[in-house]
């Protein structure tokens, strides 16, 4: 198996922190699209040409954020793009006949916003930041957004928020080394922390940078400054019928594969998860069917050294029939890869 570089995309004038594939593209003749965000304070929209297969920058979203744009996320319908910035705001953009317009600005965080994520149905948005809080916003008609909860609990800077792929359960990870699970426990939209995955229960021993779910939502992978990647699982996704939340438990820790901070992990629909790390490499891991019972259940499929010239900040598998991998780096470039045998 080989990770083959399809294209190297230049354009951003500072490090590229993150990107997000538009989930409504890549099928039925709709060309694949993704957005990227950077220390250059802009967001770029990239589209694949259907005949040549090559990527080009279709739009640059600028003059809105006044500091680094750290994270971007398309709504499930692909119609809206949320961008989170060190300037403390989250902007919502709409594609109006090829031009992207900022239709709303979410304020509230006290300082840098670090991550933004939509839930599966597109009815809720979550953000988090250095002020240690996680905010949940309700999506209302007319591009209105209302904050429904400000969740305190993390002891430090919150690096990423991610909704479960099917349930309205929110996960966050932090500089405080923990992963927190947040759920709405009653009818009154009373959001609270239902579980914390921390060091004593096989949790990470340094900053947790990212997490990702498998397609069925019963497994989660997390990555950290502690140089490990951990896999977690749950028996029953979501709230069980009798009430109460089914806890997540540690399945295995992948140690010795990374020798510098792991910034990003993403699980593909085919069951392969990719990692992006501070050693400029991309690694792919897969289920190890031959493992002994009780032993590690995941193995390294391949390591792409020098995938970029500098740290790999973000990796994400594409939607669509033939999954590709996109990576974003401190070197200011984005690369699109194909996994071939």
């Amino acid at each position: 198996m080989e990770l083959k570089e399809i294209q190297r995309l230049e354009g951003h004038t500072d490090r590229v922190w993150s990107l997000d594939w538009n989930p409504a593209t890549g099928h039925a003749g709709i060309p694949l699209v993704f957005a990227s965000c950077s220390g250059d304070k802009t967001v770029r929209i990239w589209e694949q040409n259907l005949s040549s297969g090559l990527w080009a920058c279709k739009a640059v979203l600028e003059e809105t954020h006044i500091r680094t744009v750290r994270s971007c996320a398309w709504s499930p319908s692909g119609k809206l793009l949320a961008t989170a910035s060190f300037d403390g705001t989250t902007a919502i953009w709409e594609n109006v006949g090829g031009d992207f317009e900022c239709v709303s600005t979410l304020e509230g965080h006290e300082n840098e916003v670090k991550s933004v994520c939509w839930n599966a149905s597109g009815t809720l948005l979550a953000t988090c930041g250095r002020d240690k809080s996680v905010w949940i916003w309700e999506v209302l008609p007319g591009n209105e957004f209302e904050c429904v909860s400000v969740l305190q609990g993390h002891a430090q800077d919150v690096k990423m928020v991610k909704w479960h792929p099917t349930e309205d359960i929110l996960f966050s990870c932090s500089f405080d080394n923990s992963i927190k699970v947040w759920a709405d426990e009653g009818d009154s939209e009373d959001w609270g922390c239902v579980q914390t995955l921390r060091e004593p229960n096989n949790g990470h021993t340094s900053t947790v940078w990212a997490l990702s779910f498998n397609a069925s939502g019963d497994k989660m992978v997390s990555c950290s400054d502690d140089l490990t990647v951990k896999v977690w699982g749950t028996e029953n996704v979501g709230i069980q019928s009798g009430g109460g939340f089914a806890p997540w438990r540690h399945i295995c820790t992948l140690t010795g594969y990374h020798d510098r901070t792991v910034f990003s992990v993403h699980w593909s629909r085919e069951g392969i998860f990719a990692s992006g790390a501070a050693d400029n490499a991309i690694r792919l891991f897969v289920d190890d069917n031959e493992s002994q019972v009780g032993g590690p259940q995941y193995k390294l499929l391949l390591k792409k050294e020098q995938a970029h010239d500098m740290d790999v900040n973000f990796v994400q598998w594409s939607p669509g029939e033939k999954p590709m991998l996109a990576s974003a780096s401190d070197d200011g470039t984005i690369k699109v890869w194909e996994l071939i045998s």
Partner: protein
Amino acid sequence: MVSGLINANPVIYEKKERRARTAPSTFHDEYAVEPIDQQEDPEYSYSLEQLKVVTEEAIEVDDKRNYVRVTFTPTVQHCSMVTIIGLCIHVKLMRSLPSRYKVDIRVAPGSHTTVDEVNKQLRDKERIAAAMENPNIVHLLDDCLAPSFD
């Protein structure tokens, strides 16, 4: 700003004579020291070298693996400027070394009351990036770094 000095009686060491050299294509320990030892300590106008906050011995360079590690020692255990010093060293090295270099900066074990906390912050490039967008911090860093550019 601070009303009293954190360390009113620092020990001052002799500056080492450095021979002039042309910019090398490979790097050794001395070259990594040169850009940072002339940095000014944020509290006084002595350099980090004169205060023995940074010494040649505390710098590891591996040119083949593109790796530099700097271990620095604040003059007192409770130094509140420790993160700023670390940030200064980081910024100076980023501006002086090729982008292929991985730079690790840490406080010498046992030399400060909050070594682990400080080291964790200095390892967090996202927090460093955010700090570098703060004009107040940038001004302070530029003041500390100015003598090192002569």
